[in-house]
């Protein structure tokens, strides 16, 4: 733009020279304080969680008000495309409904059987009470982390570490909380790992976010890739935190060295989410030989 460079040379004035020097010292000092804050947050995440929580409390209402309008816009393309292929969709849906009805009856029978078997084994199921149901209002859209803001906090009984789910499936876990809002580490964050199993064969695995909206699946154990396209993954409950049986993702792509899955609760469509208590695996009574498989 051919702008002349900044007139930063102070010339011979002692006062101007000193002023410039002080400004640079202040800048370097501020940068060092910033670095100190980052390290301090890494050393003492709990203390910084409180500060962060206050910031979340302050910013959540802004997003909350605007969120409703966005949900209406995001839903519009679905509504339009549903109209366009209504006929073909109608036939397909009717066929699916018939198949699903049979499955539903079968599932009811299985559920009944399960309940009886569980009663026989006297396994105490941990109660999955919902702590809070709240709106997901925004996320760190600029940052490399995938963290969403939820409009429930300490006052609603939300604590860091608790799992969060939507009707469709698992959303993530609470990272830190303010009084009335909290931040949720989404499944798609690269730091978040969730132990899962394939729903039919029970193949265990671990899903990790890939930072671009998908999930990477790693199979536990050696051998060829056990997952296939379309496989449904649910939480396995291994290691606690996430209760078993929450739907997580569906396998979308299987390559030579790994598989990719898409989360069932798509972050951009999230409206409401429920906070669940952190899951603690039940202490089983020593099972008799042969009664090992649940």
């Amino acid at each position: 733009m051919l702008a002349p460079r900044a007139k930063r040379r102070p010339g011979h004035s002692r006062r101007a020279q000193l002023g410039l020097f002080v400004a640079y010292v202040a800048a370097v000092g501020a940068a060092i304080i910033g670095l100190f804050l980052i390290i301090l947050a890494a050393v003492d995440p709990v203390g910084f969680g409180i500060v962060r929580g206050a910031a979340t409390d302050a910013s959540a209402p802004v997003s909350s008000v605007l969120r409703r309008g966005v949900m209406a816009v995001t839903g519009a393309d679905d509504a339009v495309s549903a109209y366009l292929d209504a006929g073909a969709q109608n036939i397909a849906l009717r066929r699916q409904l018939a198949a699903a009805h049979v499955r539903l009856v079968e599932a009811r029978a299985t559920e009944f059987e399960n309940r009886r078997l569980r009663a026989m084994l006297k396994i105490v199921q941990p109660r999955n009470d919902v702590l809070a149901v709240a709106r997901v209002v925004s996320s760190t859209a600029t940052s490399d982390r995938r963290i969403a803001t939820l409009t429930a906090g300490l006052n609603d009984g939300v604590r860091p570490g608790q799992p969060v789910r939507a009707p469709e499936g698992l959303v993530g876990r609470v990272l830190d909380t303010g009084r009335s809002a909290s931040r949720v580490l989404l499944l798609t964050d690269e730091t978040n790992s969730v132990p899962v199993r394939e729903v039919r064969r029970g193949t265990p695995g671990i899903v990790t976010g890939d930072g671009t909206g998908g999930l990477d699946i790693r199979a536990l154990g050696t051998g060829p890739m056990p997952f296939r396209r379309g496989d449904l993954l649910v939480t396995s409950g291994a290691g606690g935190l996430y209760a078993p049986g929450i739907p997580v993702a569906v396998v979308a792509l299987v390559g030579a060295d790994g598989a990719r899955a898409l989360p069932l609760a798509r972050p951009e469509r999230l409206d409401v989410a429920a906070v669940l208590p952190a899951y603690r695996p039940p202490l089983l009574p020593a099972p008799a030989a042969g009664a090992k498989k649940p």
Partner: protein
Amino acid sequence: MIGPLRLPRRDPYAPPWRVGATPVLSTIGGSALSLLPIVAPWPALPPTGFLMLLGWRLLRPEMWQAWIGAPLGFADDVLTGRPFGTGMVLWTLCLLMIDQIDTRLLWRDYWQEWAIVAAALGYSIAGAVMLGWIGGAESSLRAMVPQYLVALMTFPLVLRLCAFLDRWRLRQ
């Protein structure tokens, strides 16, 4: 980047609060864009706060000292949800580096400006990811490439916005 440019002169009757506050508030406003109610599955939004800072710095080199990066960077940390300190460190160091470049270059032209913006954006986006690793994040740089390109393409618009605001703040 916005063609042959005559920077507007300050009108003597321009209210001082408007002259001083416009750049600061517009930069904070850029950071606040990430409060938009989008739940993004990937880093979709360019770092608008940092873009505004760059825009003002390149348009008005004499306006700010480098320390302004600390308070504005802190506001960005609060609004975008990055670990506190990330913006303070990155923004201040970036302004110091641009100061150094300015003492070495006699004139700035279009392509030098692009080069400065490209380097500064790469530095700030990659730097934010790397500073996150201290806090235990495991993000990769790969996911940030689209955001980098989008941010680079957005910059001319941001500079135009800065020039528009500049004209507005300096007039009577």
